[in-house]
């Protein structure tokens, strides 16, 4: 498992290739979040941010048959078009990889301490949390299931 909270960019191809090396891996699902339209600065809580992502990834590994996973999240100043986050999950089959990847992303949105501040032409403003993000995470509550 690789968890990294970093200012620098990441190479999706390299990270996905790294997850594909184990010979039991038959599927790698990846999600990349990108800055849309407005420049922003991302603040985090060093220590807690890494730990909370680790907990979410551990939970995904307990719910689905995950062989390995990588989560990279950036902080600091980011421009439109830049990558913010990568979640990549390796599994034997696509069902587990897709589900675990989506689960990690949904929980990261509501549990991992990051805060976005947008630099808009009219001034800076903190992004407000969205109820739809809470709902996305809540739909995973309930009995764990393993697919594939």
């Amino acid at each position, binding site marked *: 498992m690789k968890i990294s909270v970093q200012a620098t960019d990441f190479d999706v191809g390299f990270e996905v290739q790294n997850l594909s090396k184990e010979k039991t891996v038959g599927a790698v699902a990846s999600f990349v*979040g990108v800055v849309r339209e407005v420049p922003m600065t991302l603040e985090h*809580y060093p220590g*807690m941010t890494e730990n909370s992502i680790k907990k979410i990834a551990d939970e995904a590994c307990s719910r689905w048959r995950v062989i390995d996973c990588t989560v990279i999240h950036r902080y600091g100043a980011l421009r439109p078009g830049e990558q913010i986050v990568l979640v990549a999950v390796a599994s034997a089959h696509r069902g587990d990889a897709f589900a675990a990847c989506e689960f990690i992303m949904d929980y990261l*949105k509501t549990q991992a301490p990051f*805060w976005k501040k947008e630099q808009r032409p009219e001034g800076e403003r*903190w992004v407000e949390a969205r109820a739809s993000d809470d709902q996305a995470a809540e739909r995973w509550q309930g009995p764990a299931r393993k697919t594939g």
Partner: protein
Amino acid sequence: MKVKVLFFASLREQLGISGEEIELPSGVTTVGGLRCYLSKRNDSWQGVFSEGRLIRAAVNQDMVQPTAPIKAGDEVAFFPPVTGG
């Protein structure tokens, strides 16, 4: 008892500090109690910690509910709902 209190994002900006060591009166034993205590410092702290505002908290870097207990030496953080990803 003494605790370390941290503030993040909009809270940090509005208060003008990122954290401090605070000596708590004996009656303050939970995260909710600490929030209430901080809100009574002065008008600007009251504005930031007013009851209607959604504020999340963590004790020793674990997200907790307002009823969570605090003890001497704890690191207690207050912050707005998170917006990463």
